[in-house]
């Protein structure tokens, strides 16, 4: 079975679901035996899910519209 260090080398691609079937098999065998790596994988994939679904840093239209309008007014006055 692979070691935790070896698991960690492949971890990034595993999190992105980008490993070959042979590598996946090794990683999953390791996960079934190693609680620390299992916790790491579980919490990391939950982190990614939470972040992607959070809709963070969305600029509300009420803020973005005045900026765009200001810029466009400036450009239109320069190009008229």
């Amino acid at each position, binding site marked *: 079975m*692979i*070691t935790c*260090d*070896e698991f*960690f*080398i492949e*971890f*990034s*691609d595993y*999190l*992105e679901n980008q490993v*070959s079937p*042979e*590598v996946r*098999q*090794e990683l999953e065998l390791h996960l079934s035996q190693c*609680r*620390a790596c*299992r*916790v*790491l994988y*579980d*919490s*990391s994939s*939950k*982190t*990614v*899910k*939470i*972040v*992607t*679904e*959070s*809709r*963070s*840093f*969305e*600029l509300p239209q009420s*803020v*973005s519209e005045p*900026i*765009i309008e*200001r*810029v*466009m007014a*400036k*450009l*239109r006055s320069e*190009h008229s």
Partner: protein
Amino acid sequence: MIRDLQKSYNNRPKNHAGHSATVDVRLSQECKTDSRNKNVFFAMEDSRTCAEGTQRHTLTSRQSLQSYGESMSFFTEIRQDDRFGPFVSFTEALGFIPRLLHAQTLLPRAIEAQAKLESAVRLKDGAISRIQKERILLCIAANRKNDYCMDVDSTVLSSLGVSDGQIDNLLNDYRQADLSACELASLQFCLKLSRHAASVRCEDIDALRACGFRDEAILEVVVMTALALYRCTLAVGLGPEPDFASRKLPSPRIDQQRGITLNGLLSGAHEVIQRKGPYLPAPYLSPITFAPFAVVQQSHGFIPNFFRAQTLRPDLLEAELEAIGRILLPEDALTRVQKECILLTVSAANLNSYCVAMHCNLLRGLGLPSEEGDQVAVDHHESNLSAPDKALLDFAVKLGTHDPDFSRGSVVKLQTLGFTEEQILECVVVTALNNFANTLQMGLGIEPDFAPPAVFEASKAKLSGASLTPIQREGAVHRPNALQDLDAELVVEAQAGKLDAFEELTRRHTQLIYRTLMAILGNPSDAQDAMQDTLLSAFKHLRGFQGRSKFSTWLVSIAKNAALQRLRGRKNFESLDEGQYKEDQDFRPRQVRAWQDNPEQCYSKSEIQQLVETGILELPAIYRIVVMLRDVEQLSTDEVARQLGLTVPAVKTRLLRGRLMLREWLSPHFTASTKGAVQ
């Protein structure tokens, strides 16, 4: 047998200079009859009137040309010590040192690379026998009409006890060579792979399995084909005189082998739904236990599928990696960027999307902007490379695609442009290595690591090796969906001065711009101010946008500049440079407490948003921007790499660190007190 070979090699006809008597005759004939060479000589005469710098190069070329009279190839040969390792191993294995090696003595490391490959792949029995391997080499040499390789390979086969009759049949039509059905199938496969690599499919591998080939044997067949093309490319590029010239080579040679390849294997290949690769199983090999992978991990930041797909034979992998290291890493002749551009351009000409994507990424890592690398892949003539570098790439494409116009004149032409013999020699070797890699990738069906800037379609290209770049072969290249720019039409209108079109573009990308600015500046009011700067700057420079990248990629670079300009005005300027975070390389997570099953249900949406935003703003800037673009804006890793001008592996590394830091930060809020957690 080896003793016989040594004897016949020593007894070959020689002139007073110790060289074969046929050499000078052939050289003088070549000079008299080759009109392209004449043109080069005339061009050199004319160049006396050119600028001083050019004239200096011309003199170098003349001196080199004089020395060719004594050389046995296109390149000056340096006497090497008989104890030179590769020479010793070739003498032991073959009984002589092929002139193909002597022709590379200006770059001993290139000879070492070839020796590594040949020792591991060719010069010993493996899953297929030594004689089978030599028959593959000879058939491909005959199919390529490569006189040098036909001469040396037929002599080596003869030394291994193969009859003259069979050798003649292999040279003319291998189907008449009295071989088993199994070996005939393998030769047919090799010829298809060597001639039309892009059309090889999983079904071809299945056909070999049905003949009784084990996976290890199939891997060897593929690698031998790649090696045959490596040697043929070298032989064309280096122009060595024959080692023996003892056998009358068939002429004119009948092209039946090509016929059967096309009829037997190509039909309908493009219409069927293709099964994905890799075609052979690849057992897991760890960079911790397999040292060569540790080196790859270090240099690439990951293990490319190209290497993973060959793990059935770690010994071959090790030899390949050593050869690649000797050819590509030193910068004593060509630079890394020049070499990567050669690999990129010839891969594109060979319609190899995998290798194109790989080298685009490596070029980005060497500091070449994404759009410039993409342009070199699609058509290097339209790139910003210097004229000599474009000529170098033309040379490589001509050689790499087996263009019949390639000649000594091609070498001389590069010399007149100021390239040294070592540099041109290295270009030949890199091109040969490229053909080795392209063949392996297509023969093993290796899946891409990254999205290519363009997909090269074999079905729409002329299959005969034309020297045109893919974009010139109509329809042979298209951008994959992920890279097609949906903004293209609006951009054209905006560039023509239509402000409404520009306004629509800004609305489409408001969030992307804002998130980029937030990631760099870290506070909303600064980001909003910088947003205005970004939009004004984008409009001002819009005409300069040439469509080499997606419009959104270009906008991000404008936003990045606007934000960095603001940052520089701050006292606590936080660089986007990797430097200060190097110590984090061994970043390992500390929190090992399990999280709850559905952590997001513990808080309201706005609370979660608040937690995530605070957590992201806590990250160092270089990780923050990657997490922002990949996880918040949800761009693909490849797009993030393009937008930030980073390699995909660099983005992956930063993304992982950013995610793990964020996980540490979020952990106290989501860990399970008792129930529901992963155990």
